[in-house]
């Protein structure tokens, strides 16, 4: 009995010791990274993050860490082009890149241009869809469902339950969407709907004299003004920013077919001039604090299990997702864009 007790105590002591060592080494690693990051003094972030969230992130980060966060905001393609130009000139200034696209990060990962870093925060992102996560490199910083947006003063949004419900004569010349040739969101929606309906849905849409925009912001403005009151593909968070925050007469519609969802990762570049500060930023961006902030300030969904969706918006778990294979979508992009141009006469 005494021996058993002694053995149990010894095992318990060993277990506690192992846990303590493990915890200590984990803390030491973060402390070490943080110390090095402080010495680096700054971190450079290229991002497509909208203004309100971007400013709050910068403010909270710089308050929390003695590290300057230098932010460059532009469109996805501008950021990709800038990084590749820096890379070709061997003068990379950027540490972390967050763009609204999955193809560029995947391509950079394949080409060995991403720095591997397993943030402790990534544990909270377990169980996400296949193709959204590439351990050590790619986790969704924002999860962006693509829904339809309807001007409620002009159109009864409740009457639209399916994409097919839009294809009626009374909606002739009232529908608009993004240009599939230049908008990644519009292209992924085309790819997803094409899997559901073939090209038939878009052919019928073309017969209804639909309009196409090169920028989703202009499309949203014209939807709100009533010029084209049905925007058949838009970011779901637009609904939060207009209806919920501004009380504007818009409402999103997630049809019974479900919707395409785009995860948008933040990645650390291999050539990062401030790799430790980049890791600190990565931990920060994927933390519960920032993920909740993104939901409340701009209405985006989080991939974290412990963060609920933005207020007054459907939860991510309740949204039926149309699966998209991002690599396949990119491989077929040229061919499918040409196909769409023919259908839409563009």
């Amino acid at each position, binding site marked *: 009995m005494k021996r058993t007790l002694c053995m149990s105590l010894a095992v318990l002591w060993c277990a506690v010791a192992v846990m303590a060592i493990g915890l200590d080494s984990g803390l030491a690693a973060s402390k070490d990274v943080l110390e090095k990051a402080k010495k680096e003094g700054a971190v450079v972030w290229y991002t497509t993050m909208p*203004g309100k969230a971007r400013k709050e992130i910068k403010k909270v980060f710089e308050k929390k860490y003695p590290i300057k966060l230098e932010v460059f905001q532009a469109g996805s393609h501008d950021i990709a082009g800038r990084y590749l130009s820096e890379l070709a000139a061997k003068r990379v200034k950027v540490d972390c890149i967050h763009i609204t696209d999955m193809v560029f990060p995947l391509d950079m990962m394949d080409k060995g241009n991403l720095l591997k870093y397993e943030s402790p925060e990534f544990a909270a992102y377990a169980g996400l869809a296949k193709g959204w996560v590439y351990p050590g490199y790619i986790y969704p910083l924002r999860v962006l469902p693509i829904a339809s947006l309807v001007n409620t003063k002009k159109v009864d949004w409740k009457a639209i339950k399916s994409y097919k419900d839009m294809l009626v004569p009374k909606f002739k010349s009232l529908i608009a969407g993004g240009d599939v040739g230049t908008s990644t969101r519009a292209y992924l929606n085309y790819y997803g709907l094409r899997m559901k309906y073939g090209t038939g849905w878009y052919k019928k849409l073309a017969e209804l004299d639909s309009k196409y925009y090169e920028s989703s912001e202009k499309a949203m403005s014209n939807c709100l003004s009533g010029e084209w009151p049905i925007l058949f593909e838009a970011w779901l968070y637009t609904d939060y920013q207009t209806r919920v925050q501004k009380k504007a007469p818009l409402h999103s519609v997630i049809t019974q077919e479900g919707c395409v969802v785009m995860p948008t990762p933040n990645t650390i570049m291999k050539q990062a001039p401030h790799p430790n500060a980049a890791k600190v930023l990565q931990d920060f961006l994927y933390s519960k604090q920032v993920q909740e902030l993104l939901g409340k300030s701009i209405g985006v969904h989080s991939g974290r299990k412990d963060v609920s969706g933005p207020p007054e918006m459907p939860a991510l778990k309740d949204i039926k997702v149309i699966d998209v294979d991002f690599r396949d979508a990119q491989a077929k992009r040229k061919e499918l864009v040409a196909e769409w141009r023919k259908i839409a006469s563009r």
Partner: protein
Amino acid sequence: MELQTTERWELNLPLLLMWTAALVATFLVLYPLLYLIYGSFRTSLPGDPGALTLSNYFAVFSSHKIGESIFNTLILMASVTALACPAGVVLVWLTTRSDMPFRRQLEILNIFPFLLSPYVTGVAWTMLLSPRSGLINKFLVGTLGLSQPPFDIFSISGTIWVLFFYYTPYMCLFISAAFKAMDPSMEEAARTCGSSLFRTSWRVTVPLATPAILSGSILIFVHVAGMFGVPAALMQPKGDYVLTTTIVHFIQVYPQQYGSAAAISMFLMMVSALGIFIQRRVMAGKSYVTVTGKAYRPRSIKLGKWRYVALGTNLLYLFLSIVLPYGTLLMVSFLRYWSGEVSAELFTLSNYTEVLLGDEAIVRSIKNSLFVSIIGSFICLVITMLVAYLVNRTKVRGRGFFDYVTTLPVGIPGMVIAVGLLWAWIRSPILVYGTIWIIMIAFITRYVPYGMRAFSNTLVQLGPELEESARICGSSWFGSFRKILIPLLKPGFLSGWILLFILFMRELSTALVLWYSGNEVIAVQLYQLVRDGELSVVAALSIVDALIMITGIIAFRLIFKEDISAGLKR
């Protein structure tokens, strides 16, 4: 005028200055341009492993709707030039050569439409002339009981309409100095011989201002080809493309096909070179000297009963170009959002508090814009003044080359020249990438043609005998330059400075590619707000931006005690 003097240092120093300026201007233009040309023949980005190829050109000229894009571009170029240039000439003539009432005030007001970015003006016009939600269409359909809205801004004619109001003041700024510097004795002689007012204007005044009118027309013609924002917003929704919106198909995809975008730019660059070639051919062997050693007193031409018709015409132009779009923006800037309707429930001041107090980056961008615009435009003017002198007043070999080279950037769309600038300056041994200086360099490079045209116009009109007389009387080159030429060039210099100040304040395409955290300018902030979908905040910032420029112009007048394009008093 040939620079010859017995004192060798006097001979060399002016020439040295001019040559230095010419070489600096050539370097600024050719450095990014050569990267673009090189890039148009590469399979990859300059610096990356790759090979030389013609495939970019094949890709462009076999691309979808390229024929239609070229056709639409030419229609746009020809229509806007054909409308804006005569309108500009008429407005300038009325405000500088006639006795139209309020001409001094109207001269300033006529250039106000130029203060707003054409893209923002386009947004304002969509609020007025969109078929379903445009205020004017709704008003006309409601009051006249029309079955269809009479106007559709989403068309090529809508695009021409918006660009017409943008380029007319551009023409005014460009030619007003030439009209003011003109000796009226020739017009008076024609009038004395019985020529009617309009015949005199058509046969005497306009031909005398040919260099400026031709330069302005060519710049507008070529510049329209590089317009992106307005055609993208107004033509693209219905599937109509121009060359710049076609370029986007090559840039706004991943991986980007910069080579193909550069290949289209080569086409636009050739149009630009052709324009300057035509200008030189038309002007070759002709004299446009109107300012000579003979004293003259500028006098206004009496319009008689036509005075009030002229005033009405000018006011109508101002109503359409300022009151309607600015008024709409002002109204929207006080709304929570634009829904095609105005209601008291939507009233808010929050857009202005966000612009003025909400973000330190906006305040920083205002300071950066003022710094780059005031200093950069001055540097640009000094360089181009010296190069224009070298081109127009000396007989040195290669002056024609400098004239061509410094005009090339005008034909290249901003988004493409920005890529050339990025490729060039990112690998430059001078570490300017990521600083405010690269923004300034980019702006100077982009707007060198404007400084050149402004000075060339004025120099062509100034006879050399004034300087020659001073030199005969013993004045040095610097002396005659300072005492004779600078006072005569002053109106052109000051109007050029204001023109460049406005252009620098508004420049977006290059700033967007080259800005960096801490050196953002107002145009970048505006763009980010547009991206964020904040149309009401965009309206508020546009109004603030326009007010800053108006304040700048007024301050400029107070400091220099000079009209924007002064000279009438001389």
